[in-house]
Structures are given as structure tokens and as C-alpha cells.
């Protein structure tokens, strides 16, 4: 496959994990902060949505990372905006994989404190991913 095609694939795949992590944080925050309904389904519903979106985000991140690495011919850091993109990307990728695994194991057995720490981590991941996305956009627009 050509370099240009990998670049287009990276552009196509990279938005899924960014959006899914953000959605996961929103769902988890809603489940954590909003009062539950009498049937006790609202909080569980939000938490299930938060669970599936973080797992899908982690799976989607593989496609984004692989296409990005092939596109940049294996460059892990680079320079200029590519380096800025990577400074935020690698911690975000590591955090995302770690948090998705934590969530897969713990499921709905998290303690309030454990879930608060998880939420802080997933919020940080969303911010790091959005920032990596910003520098990725700058790379595209300004070289």
C-alpha cells in the first residue's frame, strides 16, 4: 500500500478512539454524578455505556497506531509538530490500554474510590488524546 493511502487510513481510524474515550468519560461521569432512578437502571446503563466505549476505544487505538506508524515509516518521535503529537500520544495510548484492561477485569465491582481514580485517569487520557489529535491536525495543516 502507498504512503498516501496509509495517511488517509490514519486520518480515518484516529478519530474513533478519540471520540470513544471522550464518550466513555461523559457516560461514566453521568453514571457517577446523576441520581439513580427507582428501577436502578440509569446508573447501570451509563456505566455499561462507559465500559463498552472505553473497550472499543482501546481496540480502535490499535488501528490508529499501526496506520500512523506505517505512514511515518516507524518514527516514534520525529520532530516539530510530529514530536509534539507523539509526546501526548504515547502516554495516552498506554493509559488507554491500562484503563481498558482495568475496566475489563473489575467490571461493576469497583469501589467508589477506585472508580474515582479510574475516572481521573480516563479524563486525563481523553485530554491527552485530544491534545495529540490537535497536534496531528497541526501537522496536517502546517507541516
Amino acid at each position, binding site marked *: 500500500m502507498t504512503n498516501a493511502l496509509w495517511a488517509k487510513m490514519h486520518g480515518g481510524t484516529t478519530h474513533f478512539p478519540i471520540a470513544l474515550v471522550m464518550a466513555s468519560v461523559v457516560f461514566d461521569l453521568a453514571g457517577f454524578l446523576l441520581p439513580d432512578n427507582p428501577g436502578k437502571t440509569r446508573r447501570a446503563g451509563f456505566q455499561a455505556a462507559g465500559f463498552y466505549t472505553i473497550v472499543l476505544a482501546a481496540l480502535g487505538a490499535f488501528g490508529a497506531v499501526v496506520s500512523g506508524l506505517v505512514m511515518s515509516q516507524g518514527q516514534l518521535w520525529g520532530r516539530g509538530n510530529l514530536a509534539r503529537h507523539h509526546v501526548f500520544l504515547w502516554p495516552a495510548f498506554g493509559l488507554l490500554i491500562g484503563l481498558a484492561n*482495568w475496566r475489563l*477485569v473489575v467490571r461493576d465491582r469497583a469501589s467508589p474510590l477506585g472508580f474515582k481514580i479510574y475516572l481521573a485517569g480516563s479524563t486525563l487520557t481523553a485530554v491527552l488524546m485530544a491534545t495529540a489529535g490537535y497536534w496531528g491536525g497541526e501537522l496536517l495543516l502546517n507541516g
Partner: protein
Amino acid sequence: MSIEAKAALLGSAAALALLGVTFGLSPFLQSATVAASKEQSTNIISAAASPALEGEAKRGHSLFDHNCAHCHGEDARGDEGPSLYDLKKTDGRITRIIEGGIKGEMPRFGTKFNDADIQALLAYLRTLKS
């Protein structure tokens, strides 16, 4: 040990392992993709019946492949951006376009490329003759 602590250990191990695999495999990927890119370049050059690239032009082609081919096409014959064959503009004009971009059409590369990079790109662009 609580389930949360076990999950945290597993999550950390998975994250570190995956980052390790990514960083560990990167050099192999780098050599594989560079080799593939060289082969592709050779094919493109052969198809265009151009002389083999050397020195600055070769480095310019590598820079082009990483930064310009997305829009101008792998063979520089145009895709979303125009063909770069048989450019009539002067070196100074091309340099200004690379550095400053074209509003709404082409990004600026002034902060990314130094003078040597632009000279290499110019050397490559001057090899593109139909």
C-alpha cells in the same frame, strides 16, 4: 489483594507490554517500510524513465514522500494537489511557497523544514521532468 489492585497491575503490565512491543517493533517496521518505499521510488523513477536519484535529490525525495505525497501523489503527478512535474517557477518562488504555504490550499512548512531540507526538496523537484 483486592480485585481492583489486581486489575491495576494487569492494566499496567498490559500497557507497558504493548508500548514495549510498539517501541521494540518500530525499528523493524522502519527498515521494512523504508525498503518498500525505496522499491516503490525505484519503480516510479523507472516508469518515468528518469535517472536514479542521488545525494540531495534522494534526500529530497524522502522528505517529499513523508510530507508532500499525501496531496501531490506518490509519483508527484498530482492528487489533491497539483502535479509537480516541469515546474516553471524559480527556486526562490518555490521556497517561499514551501515555507509559507498557500492560504486555504497548502500548509506552511517553514517551521518544519530548514534551509538544507528545502534545498533537498528543490533538488528533487528539479528532477521531475516529463
